[in-house]
């Protein structure tokens, strides 16, 4: 009975949204709005970054981390985080939209959209490198596995080169009260081996929604001559 209701809910949702939703009854439903989890880095941050058994950062990675300063933080310029940094962000709203051939992640913070293509194994030729890269996904049992490549270089929080690939694994906990995310990062340029972030918990928050995120540059406040130029100009 529960399965039939589940299927019915999917069909109704599909009629309303016009999006062909998942029909495979064996695939878990992870769609919905969540209070996103935070995957803690084992490396320390920026200038405090250190190599350890859990964080095999090499000298080049440490040098890259040292270039991350307050002045060049992309957020001040209203530029969204690189993917590795985004994993470590504090809990904020995120929505997962699940269809039969893709899983879409929409983060409220900086209005970031990501698509995990379930109908592809690799990125197309000439795929550009971007902040969130190109992602392909697959179901391994009850776990959604998302492989991402074609990322831009990032210096902040977790420095990563453009050779970086990430593997995300999403699955429900035992009582489906939250979604678990494990992330593994591989970057042959800045790390001597792959490493894992701390498991993040995404708590369903069906009363929330993803609001429009309009960003205003705030460099004038910190680096202008007078804080009042910020208050007067915006």
């Amino acid at each position, binding site marked *: 009975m529960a399965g039939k209701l589940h299927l019915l809910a999917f069909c109704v949702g599909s009629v309303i949204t016009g999006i062909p939703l998942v029909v495979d009854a064996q695939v878990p439903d992870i769609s919905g709005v969540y209070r996103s989890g935070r995957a803690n880095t084992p490396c320390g941050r*920026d200038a405090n970054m250190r190599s350890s058994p859990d964080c095999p950062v090499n000298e080049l990675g440490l040098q890259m981390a040292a270039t991350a300063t307050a002045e060049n933080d992309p957020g001040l310029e*209203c530029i969204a985080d690189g993917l590795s940094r985004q994993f470590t962000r504090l809990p904020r709203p995120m929505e997962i939209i699940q269809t039969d051939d893709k899983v879409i992640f929409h983060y*409220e913070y900086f209005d970031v959209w990501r698509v995990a293509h379930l109908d592809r194994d690799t990125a197309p030729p000439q795929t550009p490198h971007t902040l969130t890269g190109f992602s392909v996904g697959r179901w391994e049992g009850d776990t959604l596995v998302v492989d991402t490549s074609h990322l831009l270089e990032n210096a902040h929080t977790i420095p990563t080169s453009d050779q970086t690939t990430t593997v995300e694994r999403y699955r429900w906990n035992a009582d489906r009260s939250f979604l678990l995310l494990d992330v593994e990062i591989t970057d042959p340029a800045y790390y001597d081996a792959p490493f894992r972030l701390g498991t993040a918990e995404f708590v369903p928050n069906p009363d929330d929604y993803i*609001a429009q*995120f*309009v960003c*205003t540059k705030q460099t004038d406040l*910190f680096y202008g001559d007078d*804080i*009042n130029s910020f208050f007067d100009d915006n």
Partner: protein
Amino acid sequence: MTLKHLLPVTFTSLLVFSSTQAHHSAAAFFDLDATISVEGTITAAKLLNPHSYYRVTTYDGVDWAWESAGTWTALAKAGWSEEALPIGTRVLISGTPAHGDKPIARFTSIAAYGPTTDSNMMILVGLDVFGRGRPDWFERVRQLGVPCENGVADCTQVSKEARQTLQDEFGSIGVWSAFEP
């Protein structure tokens, strides 16, 4: 009815903003081991993403920019608006100062006075956007007060007597102890 009409004395504790990370690396901008308090008047508000700012002008004329760690989008969802802390509100604001000598800080609490002194005050507590929990006195405040009428989530209005109770039970660790009404 505006907050001013409701609130002769307002205590605001935005605990969510005590977080150590926001859009930028907090440690890069702020001295997380230091605290600072400033008393003055709110003379401008920029309710923006990724951060919002209040300009607080001290009684001797110094302009400070006080940053919220949370996004404006998150605050707005919690019922925050320009009316929550109107221009002209007298405040005692506390938090973490920026590195360097610029008058910039990130606030962890705001105690706001209304235009008159009275036996009532409001405590706005714990938007808790970042899921780091609330202070141990949060539930006690909820027990002692009533929900505010300004639309801000988790806002509690408490009496002067309740403030004394908080002082007795928790000591000078809350915004209630920041100044004399």
